[in-house]
C-alpha cells in the first residue's frame, strides 16, 4: 500500500498541473455574457482576466469558477479520471495543494474554505499511510475516505441541480410578461414617501455643504416665487426630475423653500411624484 501511494505522488509530480478549461458550461456561459455579475474566483488554468469592477475602481483578477473546495475537488477527480469511490488521496492532495498555491499567488482572500479542505486531505493521506493494525479483526475497517466521498456525492447532486436551475433561469429570461398597467397594485408610481423626499433633500443639502460658496449678494426668493418656479419647470417639460429642481437652489434657504414647495404642490395635488424603480430618481409630473 505504501509503495502504491508513493508512486502516485511521483506520477502527479511529473504531470502537468495546467487545467485549461473552466469547470463546465455554466462557468463559461455565465462569465461570457456578464462578467460584472460574477463574484466568483477561478483558479489557474482558465485564461486569467483582469476586469474593472463597476462599483469601485478596483481591478479584479478573474481566474475561474470554483465555487468552493468540493467543487475544485470534483473538478480534479474528473480531470484525472478517477473513480470517485476510490480516490487516490495522495495524488489528489498533491494536485489540490498545487491549485491552492496558485490561488494564493493570485488572490489570498479565497484561501479560507480551501485551506480547511487541504487540512482534511492531508489528514486523510496520513491515515491512509498508517499501516493497518495487524491485531485488528479481519472485518473491513471503515474507509477513512468515506465521509469525504459522501460529502462529494451529496455536493455533486446539488451542483447538478444548480445547473438545472441555471438553464431554467436562462429560458425564463427569454420570456417576457406584459408591461405594467396603470392599475397594478405595485405600481412604483405611488411609491414615493416623505422619507424618499427627505433622502433626496438631504443628499442635495450635503452636496451643498461641500461646495464653498462665496455669497456676493443675497437674492431673496419668496415661497410664492419658488412655487411658481416649480410649477413652470414641471409644466414646461411635463415631468421633472426633482434632483434638477433642487440643484437649482443656490442657498440653504432656497433649498428649504424648494423642498417646501414640492411638499406644497403635492399636497395641493398639482403635481404627482413617482419613481421608475425602487430607490430611483424622484420625478414630478403634472397631476392629471
Amino acid at each position, binding site marked *: 500500500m505504501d509503495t502504491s501511494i508513493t508512486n502516485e505522488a511521483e506520477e502527479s509530480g511529473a504531470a502537468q498541473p495546467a487545467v485549461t478549461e473552466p469547470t463546465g458550461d455554466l462557468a463559461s456561459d455565465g462569465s461570457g455574457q456578464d462578467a460584472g455579475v460574477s463574484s466568483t474566483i477561478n483558479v489557474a488554468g482558465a485564461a486569467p482576466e483582469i476586469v474593472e469592477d463597476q462599483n469601485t475602481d478596483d481591478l479584479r483578477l478573474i481566474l475561474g469558477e470554483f465555487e468552493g473546495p468540493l467543487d475544485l475537488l470534483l473538478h480534479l477527480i474528473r480531470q484525472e*479520471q478517477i473513480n470517485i469511490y476510490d480516490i487516490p488521496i495522495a495524488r489528489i492532495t498533491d494536485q489540490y495543494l498545487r491549485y491552492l498555491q496558485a490561488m494564493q499567488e493570485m488572490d489570498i482572500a479565497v484561501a479560507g474554505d480551501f485551506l480547511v479542505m487541504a487540512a482534511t486531505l492531508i489528514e486523510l493521506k496520513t491515515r491512509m499511510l498508517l499501516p493497518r493494525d495487524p491485531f485488528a479483526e479481519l472485518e473491513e475497517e471503515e474507509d477513512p475516505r468515506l465521509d469525504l466521498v459522501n460529502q462529494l456525492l451529496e455536493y455533486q*447532486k446539488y451542483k447538478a441541480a444548480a445547473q438545472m436551475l441555471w438553464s431554467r433561469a436562462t429560458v425564463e429570461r427569454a420570456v417576457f410578461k406584459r408591461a405594467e398597467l396603470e392599475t397594478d397594485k405595485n405600481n412604483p408610481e405611488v411609491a414615493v414617501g416623505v422619507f424618499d423626499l427627505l433622502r433626496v433633500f438631504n443628499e442635495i443639502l450635503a452636496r451643498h455643504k461641500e461646495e464653498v460658496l462665496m455669497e456676493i449678494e443675497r437674492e431673496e426668493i419668496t415661497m410664492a416665487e419658488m412655487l411658481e418656479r416649480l410649477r413652470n419647470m414641471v409644466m414646461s417639460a411635463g415631468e421633472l426630475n426633482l434632483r434638477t429642481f433642487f440643484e437649482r437652489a443656490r442657498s440653504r434657504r432656497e433649498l428649504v423653500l424648494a423642498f417646501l414647495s414640492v411638499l406644497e404642490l403635492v399636497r395641493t395635488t398639482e403635481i404627482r411624484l413617482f419613481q421608475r424603480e425602487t430607490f430611483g430618481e424622484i420625478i414630478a409630473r403634472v397631476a392629471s
Partner: protein
Amino acid sequence: MAESMEQFNEEEMDLELAAPDEEFSEIEEASGETDRNQGAGAPHSIQSSAERMAIIEALIFVSDEPLSARTVADVLKEDSNAIEAAMAELAQEFNARNGGLQLREVAGGWQFATRPEHHEHVRAFLKSRPSAKLSLASLETLAVIAYKQPITIPEILDIRGVQSPSAIKTLLDKRLIVARGRKETVGRPMMYGTSKEFLIQFGLKDLSELPSIEDFQDLAGGSA
C-alpha cells in the same frame, strides 16, 4: 412665507373637498346606467362557458401576477373547480394558436407571457439587456435550499463545503428565499425556504415540478 402657505391651505381645502364629490357622483351615474341596462348592480351572471373563458382571459390579462383559479372563483362567485377546468381549457385553446403569447401556469396561477423563441426581437424592442444573472455560488445555494427546505444556514454551508453565507444574503435580497421560522434546536437558528418569487423567476408551477434530487445522483455519479 408663512402667509403664502396659509393662503394655499385655504385654497387647497376647497379643492380637496370638491374633488371627491365630483368623482363620486360620476361613479353613481355610471353604475346607474348599468342598473338600467342589466337590471342589477352586480356584474351579470355568466351565460355560457365561452363567455366564462373570455372573462377569465380578461382577468388574467389585467392581473399583475399569476392569477389563481381561486381568486377568479371569488371574483366571479363561481365554483373554483369549474373555473379551474375553464382555465385549463382556455389555456389549451389559447396555446393551440401558437402565437406570440403563451398562457402558462406559474407559481400556482396563470399568466400571459411571450414565447422564449422571440426573445431577441422583444428585447430589441424593449431595449433591455439580459437581466443580471445569479452567480454559481448563489445558484448552488438556491438548489440546496429548494431541495432541503426548510434548512438552516449551517446546514447549507455544510453541503456546499464553504463557510461564507454571502450567497444567502444575495438570495434574500433578490427575494428568492424567505425565512421559514426557527429550528427547535440549540440556538434556534433561522430556517429558510424558497419564495413565490422563486417559482415565478424559474417558471415553476410549484415545487413538485422540480426534478427529484435523486435523479441528479444518476447524472452526476457517472464518473468512474
